[in-house]
């Protein structure tokens, strides 16, 4: 049994190895800058890393993502809690959110370019919008899902409204809040790349569009792999955090 398991686990990397081998062979046969072999892309990765271009671009994009995502999530969390706790606020804000939520984030780009100009605030504002609505909506859903009996029990145990909020309502809404956070963890990267491609001259998106102009497919592929890693890392960080905070009791 043990042998069978170890044998089958040896098979897991096989498709990836086959894919890379196929890529390498096809690239060498094609022999065109439009389809470089895997080894050339890998070499270019080291060159970009060594020159500092890759890290500089990544740092620029990552900073924008972190600031926008943090601000958007906090604002979404705050709005969601406010709506979840106060029916008047919920009824006042719900129609507005229902209208604004379905607008694709990049749809805001032309408007924001006119309103705040082409500067560092532009991608941050876009990411803010990208993170705000799903987090607000999911926080609201999570808070409304907490049965009133839990709150009544807490009240009979002499808990104040603040204590109930921090120790009953928010912890019990956490699974929904994390759904909102994870939903947009990948999306914010797509948004920042789009903003950098169209409007900002630094970051991974800018590196991508410059590589396209210079017909450097190897650099484009390096950027795409890096983006894939960043998106999945973000998702995994939240998955880990969610498991850490809610795994024991769910």
């Amino acid at each position: 049994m043990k042998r069978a398991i170890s044998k089958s686990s040896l098979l897991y990397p096989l498709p990836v190895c086959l894919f890379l081998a196929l890529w390498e062979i096809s690239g060498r046969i094609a022999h065109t800058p439009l389809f470089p072999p895997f080894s050339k892309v890998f070499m270019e990765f080291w060159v970009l890393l060594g020159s500092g271009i890759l890290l500089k671009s990544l740092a620029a994009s990552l900073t924008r993502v972190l600031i926008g995502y943090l601000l958007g999530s906090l604002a979404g969390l705050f709005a969601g809690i406010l709506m979840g706790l106060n029916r008047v606020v919920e009824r006042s804000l719900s129609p507005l959110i229902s209208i604004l939520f379905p607008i694709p984030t990049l749809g805001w780009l032309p408007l924001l370019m006119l309103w705040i100009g082409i500067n560092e605030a532009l991608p941050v504002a876009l990411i803010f919008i990208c993170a705000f609505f799903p987090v607000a909506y999911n926080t609201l859903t999570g808070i409304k899902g907490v049965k009133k009996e839990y709150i009544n029990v807490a009240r009979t145990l002499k808990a104040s409204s603040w204590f109930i909020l921090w120790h009953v309502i928010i912890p019990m809404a956490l699974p929904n809040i994390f759904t909102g956070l994870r939903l947009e963890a990948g999306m914010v990267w797509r948004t920042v790349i789009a903003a950098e491609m169209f409007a900002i001259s630094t970051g991974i998106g800018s590196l991508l569009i410059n590589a396209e102009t210079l017909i450097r497919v190897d650099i484009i592929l390096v950027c795409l792999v890096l983006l894939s890693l960043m998106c999945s890392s973000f998702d995994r960080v939240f998955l880990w955090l969610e498991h850490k905070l809610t795994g024991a009791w769910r």
Partner: protein
Amino acid sequence: MPFISLRNITTPYCLKNVNLDIEEGELIVLLGFTGAGKSTLLNVIAGLTEYQGEVYFDQKNMNDIPVEKRDVGYLLQDVYLFPHYNVFNNVAFGLRATSCPADKITEKVEAILGLLNISHLKNRYPKDLSGGEKQRVGLARSLIMEPKILLLDEPLASLDPVTARNIRKEVKSLHRRLFLTTLYVTHDFNEARELADRIVVIIKGELKQLGSVQDIFYKPAKEIKELINII
């Protein structure tokens, strides 16, 4: 002087002009079928629902006193243990909410878990508890705040007969030991007979009869006679 006095209690769609006096340390069973208004009466006493009329605890009018300050312990059929806290933290919840010192919390929680024979469960989460264990934890969580009044809303209705009987015995024995004024809601006549000092029968929101177990079962009012016959 009664410890709890209810005067002309009326609630929308449910209770109609209920008057009731309960002595300190009594175990009163509120008996009636589903929808009769038993749970609503508990909610009135706890301050969890709107009502007309007056509620007195120890001759003090409680109408304007919020639930947090009424000193009641409340245990519901579904218990509503906080799923994100283990047994220890569930039981400690009220003490933490009232800023009790940490060493005092540990001491009190350990004591109450020991009293209910559930010390071995303290690190478990509610999802890993059986129905009977949940009820015991819920009882510990209510009792740790040393309430003046204990309200139990069909706490054993969803348990198997053996577990329910065991917990019933524990409730009775705890009541004797703590001399805690207790209101126990049930629709089970046998449970009422086994537990009650006095029984209150509520039918369609009205208090139909109040008396000892003997009074209710051997000299029942007309409507209750019909109910007993149905069973």
